[in-house]
């Protein structure tokens, strides 16, 4: 279970462990607190986190394809922008979370300021 690092600002910051758990260009599913999230490591750099399931039919977003910061759901190819959460194939948004890296290369996710 990831350690609860910080609860100030009303947010919850949880460690997801080392970045190397995710291969470059792919995503993986994580459990953080009681939340399911998908964390991505696109080739263009950065680490992004979103809700785990596609708003369309619940597809596992972590299994999607990445092109830049565009994510494509593996089930019916809905597309999303990882940075903004925007649904590129229709409109609306998915929940995104901020992820930062510690000096040791661990990912820390901030569940508190997830966008709706």
């Amino acid at each position, binding site marked *: 279970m990831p350690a609860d690092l910080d609860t100030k600002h009303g947010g919850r910051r949880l460690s997801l462990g080392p970045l190397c758990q995710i291969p470059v260009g*792919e995503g993986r599913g*994580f459990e953080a607190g009681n939340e399911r999230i998908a964390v991505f490591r696109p080739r263009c750099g950065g680490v992004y986190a979103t809700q785990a399931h596609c708003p369309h039919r619940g597809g596992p977003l972590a299994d999607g394809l990445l092109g*830049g910061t565009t994510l494509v759901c593996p089930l019916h190819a809905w597309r999303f922008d990882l940075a903004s959460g925007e649904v590129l194939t229709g409109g609306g948004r998915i929940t995104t979370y901020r992820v930062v890296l510690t000096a040791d290369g661990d990912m820390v996710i901030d569940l508190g300021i997830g966008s709706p």
Partner: protein
Amino acid sequence: MSGKRRLVVVGNGMAGARAVEEILTRGGGEQFAIAMFGDEPYGNYNRILLSHVLTGEQDPDEIVLNPIEWYAENGIMLHSGVRIVEIDRPGKAVFCDNALWLHYDQLVIATGSRPFMPPLEGLVGRDGRYKPGIFVFRTLDDCRHIAAAAQSSGRAAVIGGGLLGLEAARGVLGYSCEVHVIELGPYLMTQQLDAPAGAILKSTMEAMGVHVQLGKKSTAVLGEGRVEGLAFADGGTLPCDMVVIAAGIVPNRELGVRSGLTVERAIVVDDHMRSVDDPDIYVVGECAQHRGRVYGLVAPLWEQARVLADHITGRDTGAAYHGSKLGTKLKVMGVELASMGTVEAEASDEVVQFSEPRRGVYKKLIVREGRLTGAILLGDMSKAAFLTQAFERDLPLPEARRELLFDIAAPSGPSTFQDMADALQICNCNGVAKGDIGRSVRAGARTARAVMEATRAGLGCGSCKGMVGELVAWFCEGQVEEDPSVHYYVPGIPMPTPELVRSIRERSLRSVSRVFEVLTGGVEDATSKPGLASLLRTIWGRDYEDERDARFINERVHANIQKDGTFSVIPQIPGGVTTPAQLKRIAEVAERYRVPLVKITGGQRIDLLGVEKDNLPGLWTELGMPSGHAYGKSYRTCKSCVGTDFCRFGLGDSTRLAIQIEERFQGLESPGKMKLATAGCPRNCSEAMVKDLGAVAVEGGRWEIYVGGAAGAHVRKGDVLCVAESHDEVIRMMGRFIQYYRENARYLERSYSFVERIGIERLRAVLVEDREGIAAGLEQALEASISDYRDPWLEAGRPVTANQFATLLPKGASGEAARAR
């Protein structure tokens, strides 16, 4: 003129002149110095209207399309009345009957056709010419001659009860000459009508004064110096003083034969309308045979001329002719009729019919899978426009079929799309209606692709894509923009497959990320990645730098993702042959892993469905069977019937062949999935004729190889590539096709589209006859891929990426990952 390419056009009829017009509108006047040759001493005229000249409704001047001045105005050198007798292909020159010869850089053959002359005794007089009183009906001069003769004749016979014959009959009737139409077949206009419609037309014709004699074979022309009558096979005779022969046409293909071009019924062309033998010789019109068909109507000819012009001017080197749907609307002796597609229904077709012989009205529609595949309308044209559109565009039809025959309520508009309700569902996979497409266009989308992206229409099984394109064009009202990416290998890189392959080879691009770096400046396109990964693997084999993020999830975990995020596991069972021991093992593993659904697949294998990603490696290991590759864009499986061991009809050992095929091609990645089958006899129990590749045993120990079949959302019977003499030859020829497909198809382009796009004639030329000398190279490249094959399920013990098979991290965080149901 220097610097211009020399274009010689043989034939100045409707096809030749139209092709030149199309070339000129594409700026061809700047590129080419054009010379045209025509038999007839005129400009170019509309042959379709000849019957009007015959009846006197129109003057010859009125049907001229391009007068003599037009040629000079456009800088075209017209040699009229001159005939080309030979083409010197190596020397690139044409020779004329007046001893002139001319060099060309590119040549267009548009020699059209001539009347078919049935073998009649006494047709030719002692002087070796047709007897006075014998006429054909093809040119302006023919019209003049017929008209002149009819004025002084008492009775005329017209041989041929087709469209041309009836038009000739009508022309002659106008000169107060008795007319008899002599038809060999059982009814009139057998090309366009069925028997009941033919019967109605006959009585209408007879009411107008035309005598119609059916099932009558003419055998001889009577009379010594000139025509005095006709004799028939049944022993009867018909006294008459003129005979018009309108018994069909024959393509003028002799020039092609003499010049060593491939000629069947006509000169065989590829999809760019070029001779399959010579890239500098184009062929258009009635003398061209495209995908086994020769067209004698004008609409296909216009389409061909456009493709030819796009291609020869370089305006669109990807321009391709895909064949035309045949439909005609015409007026025969004041009787209107329309005919399209199939005339006779097949057993499984739906036939909608109405007949009112007293008024000369007849309507028959043939509906196949909800689409119009054939129609005959006689005497009432009120629904013709609607039906023509529905036929040409393959539109879905109203459920109440009577609406196809009559205007039930309000008078119908001219357009089907107009009539179509906004709520009508166009894309049945993603539930997109006509109205949604309209809204998308109004929101600014101008290409089919943009609309598809925005609405999801056509992005399911893809079978409605054509219709979506048509609707977008209709909503755009001419403002539609062509989406160039339809010609690319993948949408994200603006290159057709051969060009992309060249680029990748020249610059030694060995990984997907490197391709983007070099070719798009680093801009990654997610949906293009799997296609590039497949192509790079095909090109580089073991030197390919595999980046797993470029793969679709199925190919990362070697299983097929399901709607709930679990996976399906299908082990290899070559030829569908298993053993009791194997079945027991599968059963035990399925129980141990509590597999929710065990199902026999259509490919004669066993599918274990609902497996968690985390359980894949364990399950594979315990099965101890290799991957069946039921998840990738690759060779899938080869289905087979029982074959010779037990079947009492079997002609070939289909099971052994299927196993050999699977052992050879297992796991090969390809632009689209490849489903194969072998059938031990032409009963085709394993459906080999509708597979991407199929082998069907025929008597004599041989195998017919079918390519480009489909029986999914799209249904198509494959084309026979060749007949192979042995299992080894089947495998060799299939291998050539597979490698050619791997190197030339667009990503996700299934074999049925690929075969139609390239054309079976060309595939035979390249793959069977090795006209381009690439067969050995294809075999070698394929061999390299095959020798690199490794069962991907061996990754069970050696994952390639971090947490390759983990559903949820950290591992064991909750019980969920190892969820057993």
